[in-house]
């Protein structure tokens, strides 16, 4: 029998799903992405380095901040530039805003209605007015954070290679601090709702990958931790990401996918909580402890629970950064001006390579560039989280289908859509 689920809504980008079941065995489960290829890595070749953060942030309208930051960091690595501590704090602050608003949108508006068997958000929000108000309010605070630091929430402007073109006003930071308790309160309204949901039972052991750091819950940088199903862990440098992870092209879709040692793997909130939960901030850690998870937690549906924990964690992280930044801000010029990079040259005087990995809302995001001596890009590779976990999603679906194959078609389709959506896939990112 053939199972087809067309036009899966409530996610970024376009995809269908097709599976073949023969004599009870699932022969194949394929995410057939229908997004056109924009060929962004190709577009960038021959362009100037400073265009890369501007162009790559257009990969995705929900997570432009992480593309921009990752692109900037990779180029800085290529130029051997070290940004100031203040610059790093401001970038981190934007990324916190990014995590919070993306997670809040996904878990509340895109995924949660699935577990109430509701296909239309307008119905869902009509039935959950208090939570809707909270979801909107927490998103508004997070969007404001990005706007204050980056100049605009969707496709921020102020950040560039070397630093920031303009700095936020201290009064704006203070006003965000003032609104923080309310944002946190609203986040807990969401958390409480998520914790009450009875999620489907499902478990399939897999490899988890995320950035890691000895001291903090890694998202801005760090090494890459790989936790395999046999319980072994290894840590590699971010620049060795592409040596370990293999990108795959498949005939049935324009989106690429990826494997590690020939196997699928998982990235994102669930992977991060599994690998880095001990580094969570206090309130988030309190929620995590209440979950009573036995690590590794392999139920993909619990990705939305992990996102809820992270909403609180990144609120706490943002507050910490806001406190530090509001204490003192230096009127510093962006390094791009100091180094006269705008004069279109590689400051090293020769061609160079740089790469970087950050944690995007959906998982580890990797950007790399080769830049010639005139500052022109000669090669570019971007591996997005959805590319990373697309194979894992297919493997999950292969295992999940036998459990639900005898359900009536409508119900079965709902379950398939719910599992796919729990990943928070971004097909726009995947088909960049």
């Amino acid at each position, binding site marked *: 029998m053939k199972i087809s689920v067309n036009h899966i809504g409530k996610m970024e980008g376009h995809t269908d799903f097709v599976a073949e079941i023969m004599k009870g065995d699932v022969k194949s489960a394929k995410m057939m992405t229908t997004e056109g290829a*924009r060929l962004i890595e190709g577009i960038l070749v021959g362009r100037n380095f400073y265009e890369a953060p501007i162009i790559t942030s257009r990969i995705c309208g929900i997570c432009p901040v992480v593309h921009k930051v990752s692109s900037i960091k990779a180029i800085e690595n290529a130029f051997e530039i070290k940004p100031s501590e203040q610059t790093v704090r401001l970038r981190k602050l934007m990324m916190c805003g990014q995590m919070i608003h993306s997670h809040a949108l996904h878990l509340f508006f895109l995924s949660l209605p699935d577990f109430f068997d509701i296909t239309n958000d307008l119905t869902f929000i009509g039935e959950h007015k208090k939570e809707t108000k909270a979801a909107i309010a927490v998103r508004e605070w997070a969007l404001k954070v990005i706007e204050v630091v980056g100049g605009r929430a969707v496709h921020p402007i102020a950040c560039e290679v070397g630093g920031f073109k303009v700095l936020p006003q201290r009064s704006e930071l203070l006003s965000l601090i003032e609104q923080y308790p309310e944002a946190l309160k609203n986040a807990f309204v969401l958390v409480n709702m998520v914790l009450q949901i009875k999620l489907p039972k499902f478990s399939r052991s897999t490899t988890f990958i995320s950035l890691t750091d000895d001291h903090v819950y890694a998202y801005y940088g760090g090494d890459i931790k790989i936790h395999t199903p046999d319980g072994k862990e290894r840590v590699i440098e971010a620049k060795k990401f592409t040596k370990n992870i293999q990108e795959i092209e498949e005939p049935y879709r324009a989106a690429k996918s990826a494997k590690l040692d020939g196997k699928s793997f998982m990235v994102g909130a669930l992977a991060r909580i599994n690998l880095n939960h001990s580094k969570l901030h206090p309130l988030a850690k309190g929620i995590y402890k209440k979950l009573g998870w036995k690590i590794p937690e392999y139920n993909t549906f619990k990705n939305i629970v992990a996102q809820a924990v992270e909403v609180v964690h990144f609120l706490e992280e943002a507050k910490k950064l806001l406190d530090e930044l509001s204490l003192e801000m230096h009127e510093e010029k962006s390094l791009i001006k100091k180094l006269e990079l705008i004069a279109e040259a590689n400051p090293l005087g020769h061609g160079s390579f740089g790469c970087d990995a950050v944690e995007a809302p959906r998982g580890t995001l990797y950007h790399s560039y080769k830049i010639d001596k005139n500052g022109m890009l000669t090669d570019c590779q971007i591996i997005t989280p959805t590319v990373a976990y697309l194979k894992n999603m297919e493997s999950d679906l292969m295992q999940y289908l036998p459990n639900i194959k005898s359900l009536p078609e409508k119900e079965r389709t709902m379950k398939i859509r719910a599992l796919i959506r729990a990943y928070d896939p971004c097909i726009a990112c995947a088909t960049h």
Partner: protein
Amino acid sequence: MKSLKTIKPRFAIVSLTSCEGCQFVLLDQGQKFLDFLKSVEVDEFRLLEDDPEPKGDYDICLIEGNPITNENFKLLREMRKRSKILVVLGNCAALGGVWEIKNYQLKKKTIKLVYKDRGHIENPDIREVDNFVKVDYTIPGCPITGSETMEILYQLLAGKAPVLPQEPVCNECQNNGYDCLLQRGEICLGPITLGGCKAVCLKSKQACWGCRGLFEGAQVKNLMNYLLRNFTRDQINRVMEVFGARDTITQYMEGDKKGKPAIRNKSL
């Protein structure tokens, strides 16, 4: 009371290939946008619903993104056929978007840079949506400006033709007291680009790269002559390419008025 539901305009938002950022700008309007949705019959909006698509026609349809795949083209034509008012949402649909850079590259080479051994990849010329279907209104920007878009949506709801003031980005830039980056020696397309974005880029000291397209009456030649004193044609072209404005601006300068209006915001 019975007729209340049926008199609501039937509304659709459809995305072709894009980053979907313009839809997120709408969602980011929060309660304001949800209130707007209450005043229409939301028939197709895949970001918020997963219902089977209803048959029938739409009163207002917003189109985001570019047609790249055959499916995109089919969907675009279908939506035009079924919609009374078709509005393009954002820079990709209006001007071609960032992807239009591909038009200035060798098609096969660009594909090869991304895919090593996959077979056919659709890589057509990136063209503005109004090359393929009749467009009634354009909401400009990469991304769109939230408050401006909400105003336009309510005007459409009231049955009015939305009007955007035909003024350059410079007006808002100067009113806000931002530094003039053109005078500081950067390539800034603010003097010829349609305002309404609150000069948001200039606020962050980023020169205008023309994502909202030309306004009616823009003195394109004056700006080009000014820029050519300090920059090469190639440098200027590259800036104009980033948001798909190069072809439109070139056509306008060459006085190409046949076929379609060079000023894509004219209808607003």
